[in-house]
């Protein structure tokens, strides 16, 4: 079974803090993704990576950055957390080839910025 894990289930940070959210997958997937989920808005793509050290902006990248130094690990960074970044953050991974499209999701990190 594909396993995607995230470093924290719940996180509380103060405004202005630098926040790191970590995601690890164990299926040798090429692609990794970070989404945020908000009520009434569904999931929105923040960033994704299709290879080590490669990244692309998603639909809402402002206020976020990412790092992928190893294939299995993808980090989301909030350089200076703000209250409007309070949300559920979901990491996902997938194979990067045609015919292997499905994304597998981690358990999520509920971040509260006070």
């Amino acid at each position, binding site marked *: 079974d594909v396993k995607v894990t995230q470093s924290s289930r719940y996180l509380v940070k103060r405004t202005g803090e630098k926040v790191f959210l970590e995601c690890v997958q164990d299926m040798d997937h090429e692609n990794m993704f970070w989404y945020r989920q908000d009520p009434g808005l569904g*999931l929105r793509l923040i960033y994704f990576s299709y290879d080590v050290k490669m990244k692309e902006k998603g639909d809402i990248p402002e206020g976020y950055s990412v790092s992928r130094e190893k294939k299995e690990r993808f980090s989301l960074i909030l350089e200076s957390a703000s209250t409007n970044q309070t949300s559920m953050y979901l990491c996902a991974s997938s194979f990067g080839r045609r015919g292997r499209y499905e994304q597998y999701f981690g*358990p999520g990190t509920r971040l509260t910025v006070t």
Partner: protein
Amino acid sequence: ELKVEQNPLFLSMQEGKNYTIYCNYSTTSDRLYWYRQDPGKSLESLFVLLSNGAVKQEGRLMASLDTKARLSTLHITAAVHDLSATYFCAVGRWIGNEKLTFGTGTRLTIIP
């Protein structure tokens, strides 16, 4: 810009009844996905629909895709309580890699 709309947003139904969740999208897509999310949990993949006319069934859930109408449906037959969850559809497009655009979700509550 691709828009994905689900309706209804909230659905409360009695056990044993049938109902359908609709997913409309605004531009041509390559694939359509359905996911389930239980409260406090992550997303679980239910179906991947790959082409026009595709139909997939698992237990009491059946998903179909009409690419000409840009419409997918998730039909629930004889609902049972453990189907209570939030259901998301997502449109997949290959832009060098598979990019998913999600609908807002349908929160389904099955009443005994």
